């Protein structure tokens, strides 16, 4: 049989592509074991069109903040690393670091030393979602910017894009640094990015986020699209600011100063 090398390579190449393509097509077209009709959300879940949080910083003390950070980090198995490769979902900063654009030399003494709670702002137009190449971080219909740890490739583009520094990366295995594992919630593995998720697992059970629950009323959580919600009432009657609003990401965490 007279076949030259070029012909052979062409036939081999086409066979490989057809074989792989066919196998993939068969796999995709196979009946999925879980039909869409079988799954549904928990009827007890809290729902909203646009979840938001109002932090009344007038009511916050260092002890309150510590308690809230502890609650969040404990139930979500956030590791306590303590070096520059730390992981934190919620933390405190002073005014000049929370609102660096307001370079006010004469901010009032009390505000200057007040603790401000910083966390993911679950923006309306998040830069992190815009840049994620795999949709591992995405905006849910209820406004929460969520993380899919299974899909994250650890490229850290979202960390570069977030103008608020809200995201942390697991540089190493976090398990040794998790003081007390919460057996109801997973940990993460090395190589993925994590951040506050507005406690989606608690919202799905009809509970408020952990920080809100232990905040003694300093944190208000609700639906911005519902004009009668507590967040809207509080925002209507108190002067409130957000972090870096001029960047256009439309953060949904408001601060009453």
């Amino acid at each position, binding site marked *: 049989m007279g076949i030259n090398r070029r012909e052979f390579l062409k036939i081999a190449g086409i066979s490989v592509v057809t074989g792989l393509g066919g196998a993939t097509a068969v796999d995709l077209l196979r009946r999925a074991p879980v039909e869409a009709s079988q799954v549904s959300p928990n009827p007890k879940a809290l729902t909203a069109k646009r979840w938001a949080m109002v932090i009344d910083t007038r009511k916050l003390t260092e002890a309150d903040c510590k308690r809230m950070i502890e609650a969040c980090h404990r139930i979500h198995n956030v590791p306590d690393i303590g*070096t*520059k*490769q*730390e*992981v*934190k979902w919620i933390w405190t*900063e002073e005014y*000049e*670091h*929370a609102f*660096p*654009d307001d*370079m006010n030399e004469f901010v009032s003494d009390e505000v200057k030393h007040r603790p401000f709670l*910083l966390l993911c702002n679950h923006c309306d137009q998040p*830069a992190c979602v*815009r*840049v*994620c*190449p*795999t*949709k*591992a971080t995405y905006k849910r219909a209820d406004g929460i910017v969520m993380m899919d740890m299974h*899909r*994250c*490739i*650890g*490229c*850290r*583009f979202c*960390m*570069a*894009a*977030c*103008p*608020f*520094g809200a995201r*942390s*990366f*697991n*540089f*190493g*295995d976090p398990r040794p640094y998790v003081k007390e594992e919460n057996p109801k919630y997973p940990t993460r593995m*090395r*190589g*993925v*990015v994590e951040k506050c998720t507005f406690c989606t697992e608690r919202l799905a059970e009809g509970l408020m986020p952990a920080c809100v629950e232990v905040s003694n009323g300093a944190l208000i959580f609700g639906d911005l699209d519902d004009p009668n919600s507590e967040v809207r009432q509080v925002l209507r009657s108190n002067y409130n600011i957000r972090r*870096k609003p001029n*960047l*256009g*990401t439309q953060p949904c965490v408001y601060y009453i100063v």
Partner: protein
Amino acid sequence: MLEKALYGSKGYYVWILLLLGLIGLGSIAYYTQLTQGLKITGMSRDVSWGFYIAQFTYLVGVAASAVMLVLPYYFHHYKAFSKMIILGEFMAISAVSMCMLFIVVDLGQPQRLLNVILHPTPNSILFWDMVVLNGYLFLNIIIGWTTLQAERKGVTPASWIKPLVYLSVIWAFSIHTVTAFLYAGIPGRHYWLTAIMAARFLASAFCSGPAILLLLSLLLRRLTKYDPGKEAIQSLAKIITYAMCVNVFFFGLELFTAFYSNIPGHMHSFEYLFHGLEGHNLLVPFMWAAVVMAIGCLVLLIPPAFRNNENILVPALLMLVGASWIDKGLALLVAGFVPNMFERVTEYAPTIPELAVSMMVYATGALILTVLWKVAVSVKKEIA
């Protein structure tokens, strides 16, 4: 033609073995990184991109620089580049390969990297970066290989090469623009949020890439007597000089905007680079060295009498590569992350394992370059 890379002088084999040894050594560091995670690097929560992505950024520029030869040669029939163009195209292949390798070693979950293809996200610039880098790699492989093959057989290349060549010119601009868009579209990081980021990238690419090509070609001439030709060398040196002038000018534009506007956010990163912030001043000596080298290389490149004298040209090009590497391969990344988004300063310096992994990638690129250039030079010698 690949069999040409299997035979060479004793020095050639020693060099290949040395590269393989370096790759092996670096692989040990990479294995540690795969098992322990990126904590072995110097990156942190605040400086979340470091040496790897910085090298990727620099090498994308080097890869795009092949267009500085392709454009005159194919669009304007500038025949003087005929002996150099294959070297440029093959260097582009090596550079793009290194780019992609640097991205892979930077990933926290490299085994999931196909997620970028399985879940395409057109609004993400990283998705487009993957598309354009792979496209450019294939373009250069196809164009370089078929033109060399055709030259070896003594025929003109097939007609379908022409549209691919034109595409590769536009594509070269695109790979660097897309990489610049990684930085230029990020709200909040003042050092990066500038409209001329893509222009700066291109200017820096078109001086540093050809400079590296010219230096390596001169080295090749010394090792193999393959001479790209005096006119080619001097033309390329001219192009490099113009591009470096534009590069330095653009940096000056950035300095003006930052300091004349006096906006603190814009100035902070420059202050960190050239003076230090809150006592943190790790990069200051590097930046001032880059300034000296940049101005020094222009002093040596602008006067034709200096530029055409190879004894002066070589140190000038070395200084150019040094200055552009410090600007793009060191400062660009770190200054975007310092100060961080709530005005805290965390410094960054690469660790030894990080440098070892980078050495593995650079050695791989050098291996690809050696093999391809060996093929090119052998084929050219064969038909001469």
